[in-house]
């Protein structure tokens, strides 16, 4: 299914928009250019500011409001039940992407973008050392309210693969140890004479009671 080297990308446009650099070192952080498309070509939508390489507390900045033509295009997409797409470079650090192969792309139905009044949530997955694995975009809310809106309202979440669980041998051994201790403590506690020898006393008592009853009769 995979490992298919011969593959023609479907993007018709092969030219690149002339950005000096998509990611710039801004003081202590990095700016990542966020681009979007209503058809084949991608144009700039804004920047995602990474305070550090890991992308904790990243925010969307400088979002460009949509022009009337762009809104029309978006509405056309929505009528055709087509997708609105966004993309970012795969590298937080380093030079501008040189080809189509350096972007990760996320999609959402154009209709949902209009319904959510251009309010979106962006999920970015990085590997923690400056490479972006994927981008996902979802509307902030699913609604049918439509207000004339041409400004984006975005939030961004940057996440990294979490470390998977390992077999919890430590916890299990701890638990066993605790159980053992509990048992030891219980064993050490002095038990009453009756508690220790009840199995011998009880039959005697029963026997005495029964013989008593017999005598009374």
């Amino acid at each position, binding site marked *: 299914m995979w490992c*298919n080297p011969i*593959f023609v990308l*479907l993007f018709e446009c092969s030219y690149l928009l002339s950005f000096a650099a998509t990611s710039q070192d801004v003081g202590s952080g990095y700016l990542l250019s966020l681009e979007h498309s209503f058809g084949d070509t991608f144009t700039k939508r804004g920047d995602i500011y990474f305070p550090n390489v890991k992308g904790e507390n990243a925010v969307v900045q400088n979002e460009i409001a949509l022009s009337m033509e762009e809104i029309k295009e978006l509405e056309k997409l929505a009528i055709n039940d087509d997708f609105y797409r966004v993309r970012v470079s795969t590298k937080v650090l380093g030079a501008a992407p040189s080809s189509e192969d350096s972007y*990760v*792309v996320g999609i959402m139905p154009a209709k949902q973008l209009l319904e959510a009044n251009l309010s979106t949530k962006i*999920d970015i997955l990085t590997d923690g050392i400056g490479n972006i694995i994927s981008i996902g975009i979802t509307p902030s809310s699913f609604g049918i309210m439509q207000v004339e809106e041409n400004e984006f309202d975005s939030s961004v979440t940057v996440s990294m693969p979490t470390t998977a669980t390992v077999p*919890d041998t430590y*916890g*299990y051994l701890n638990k066993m140890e605790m159980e053992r201790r509990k048992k030891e403590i219980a064993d050490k506690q002095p038990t009453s004479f009756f508690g220790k020898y009840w199995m011998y006393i009880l039959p005697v008592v029963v026997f005495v009671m029964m013989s008593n009853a017999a005598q009374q009769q």
Partner: protein
Amino acid sequence: MKVLVYILFLCSVHGLHDDEIGKYDWKKEFVGNADHVEFESSVSVSKYLFVASRLNALACLNSRTGEIIWRKILGEAEGKFVGIKHTKEGLLTVTSSGVARLWETNSGSLKWEAVVGATPNITITSFMMIERNYNVGNLLVATSDNGVHTMAMLSNNPRGETLTLDVATDKKISIDTTMGNIIVLEAEPTKLSATIVDGGNVESYREVVVADGWGGGVAQLIILETNQLVYLDDGSLYLVDLTLGATKATLRLDEVGINEVEKLIPINDDEVSTRGGWFVLQHEGGNVVFMEVGDAGIKITWRKTFPNLFDVQFKRLSSETFLFVTTNNGSELKTIAIDAKTGLIDETSMIRFNLNNDDGKVDKIFINMFLKRSTPLGFRLLLQCEDGSLTLVVNPNREVWRRQESLAEVVGVVMIDLPLSGAGLEFEGGGAERNVVADMFVKRIKAQSQQLLSWVQQTLKEIEAGTLFKHKTRDPLIQVEGLTRDPFSLHKMIVVVTRSGVVFGIDSLTGDIVWRHFIVGLDRSLTWKYDFYVQRTTAHFPHPPLVALLALASNQPAQPVLVTFNPITGDFNEHSATKPIKQTMILPTPDVDHLRHLLFLHQDDSLTLFPPTHGGSMTSLKLFFYDVIDGWVVGYAVNSDITIKQTWKFKIPSTHHVISMLGKNMLEKVDSVGRPLADRSVIFKYLNPNLVAMVAGSVDDAVDRANLLLIVFDGVTGKVVYTNTHKKASGPVHIVHSENWIIYSYWNTKARRTELTSIELYEGKSQHNKTTFSSFHLQANPMVMQQSYIFPTGISCMGVSHTDKAITARQILFGLKRGALFGLPRRFFDPRRPLVLEESHREEGLIQYMPEIPIPPELFVSYNLSVEMINGIYSSPAALESTSLVFVTGIDIFFTRIQPSKMFDVLKEDFDHMFISLVLIGMFVAALVARRMSQIKQLKKSWR
């Protein structure tokens, strides 16, 4: 302790009673495509036949019946068998990693094993044996890419020596038993030199330059007895004395009418001392020339011409030497024996064998020659065909047995329901036609009364024959004979395709092959990937069931091969080649003829349907594909005009490569959408059918740095739903992905053990959309619960049980490396298993967490059978909810059925029907009596 007792109690129900063995399960053993075949070395007809296969299996077959007498399987690290040799002591084998073993002929027990050549990382390419006396032991001579290794085979102390030789030259090694020498011929670009090595001491050797200025390869020369060598150069044969290096005689071949020599054939393969002064020269046009070397030089003893010459072999037995010439004209294979010295053909012992188109071409011929009392000579042929079958043929043209060895390499399986019996078919047929309601009602009544009638007739017949209460098959639950559906649909047709491109229909009740089809038109030098698509099941009479099989060449853009067939009868239709295919999908909605079409995505990104016409439902469907290309995962959407466009894509980090990937079964059923908790609330499962689990391994495989990356993503939107990394872990990875959970196994490089991680995905306490699911309407990522476990033994394959309505708890099936099929209830892999068990947990049926997964022997689905090299676990539901049918492939094939939550819907076989009916009748009578008595009592009371 308490937990242990609990687990033991929990599991004891899964065991198998002694008398249940073999009632509904079967196992067939195979060896695999034969690489080496050796007949037992004896003068008369031998019983044993030894086969070493490309799957690293060594087997001893009964040459009269073809049954396996014993079989041994070596691990992958051993490398391939480079040869097998039957000696007086036993069967000697050498693997390419350099391990020599001697096996007992009758039982297959290992007598000894030793490493040939102490140097590590050598690849042995061939071996020979010099017979010597008992005190010094026979000498094993093996060649490798490094040189020549010898080993004295003293059973208690195998002792080895190595002679390192130049790797760059073209070498040929022969042995001389009488002299105890090893003769190494090295053909360098400009000269041919011989090194004669003393077998007892490789340090002692001498080198002779045989031919200076000769550029031929070692294939064009032959060593004969008494140190004579014949080589071919520029249309002439030269006879050389090896000890001196001087040319003794020359023969110009064009003077004796020989042009274009194909090959020189020695009388014995490696052994020089028994070759005498004879050899055979084969030249173009099927001409075979028998030559003799004497004092007078090289002379021709006899020559014969054989049209369609296929194979020439020498066989020598005591004093007899025969030349076996096989011709093959495409429809008939003919082997004749020629007395080597006289050139006389023994017409009585000729073997003719009609070739069947359905077997493919003959790959190899193995000849077994033996002596008979009446006629001097007898021989048998063992044919290895392209379809992987081994056939033993005897004089004059009788096929004694045939083994379908390609079944050792099953690559695709589909299990099909059998059709209903005749009466049932009519009933179904009535339902399939589209008529008015009244008409259909009449038809239904008619069909059902007919069914009743035929049932009565059948029962009467059985009463007459006295077989009414007898078991008709060995399986107590399947009491319908022949290839018809039983009420529980436990009897199925298993359709398998093997690596060599043969499709088999196997009866699941007995394991017998019902039909077999050899796919013509596959270039068998390539590796093919096969996929089955069930286009129409058996439930749509009068339309026949239809399965499509698509074969794609996995490494070259060769033409795909598409065949469709009826899985019950095995009637095949070949279809013309289409454009190279990148992806295939079966459409979820059937057309008016209940046929589900296939959608092909071609290499040029165009889409076609198969069969091409479709009822127009295409436009109403939204279809999405994804593909993995060079570290990118790319999504596509199908437009309404059947073209595709790229939508999303994401990048697998360049430090990782995809190891394993698994989506969900498109037609999977899920019984409950939520799970009740102890506090009486419900947690809803994240049941995204488009979810794909992918595991990528790091390119860096050092023990400390190796890691695995799990990416769970939505195949429609490309959104990553969950990711995690496993530090110090590597492949192989096996994934099971079903409902809302994923279980995968991997290797922990640091702790050196197999571990499993179980992941469950939940939407939370509220359900997002109750009626329809859309990947585009999911907002939040699901809640993820996970837990990891230690699996105490190696896993070679993983699978999961499927039942009809998915109500029954799932069972996770493991093919263990040790050769067993093991099934554990899924609740052992519940990520909510608590470390400290409380009352609320018990209420939910959770079991206490233990890091190690127990392997109780009663949970072995394959009980005490060994099912070796498991590489596929396929399960299929029966109509009985409790039961799942399991088919396991590997070098063996094994079929059984499992009841993950016991057989709750069928009475046990030993159920006391008599007792329950007696009790019932007794109660009934008692009730009547009591009623009568109470009536009398009432009456009396009233009179009082």
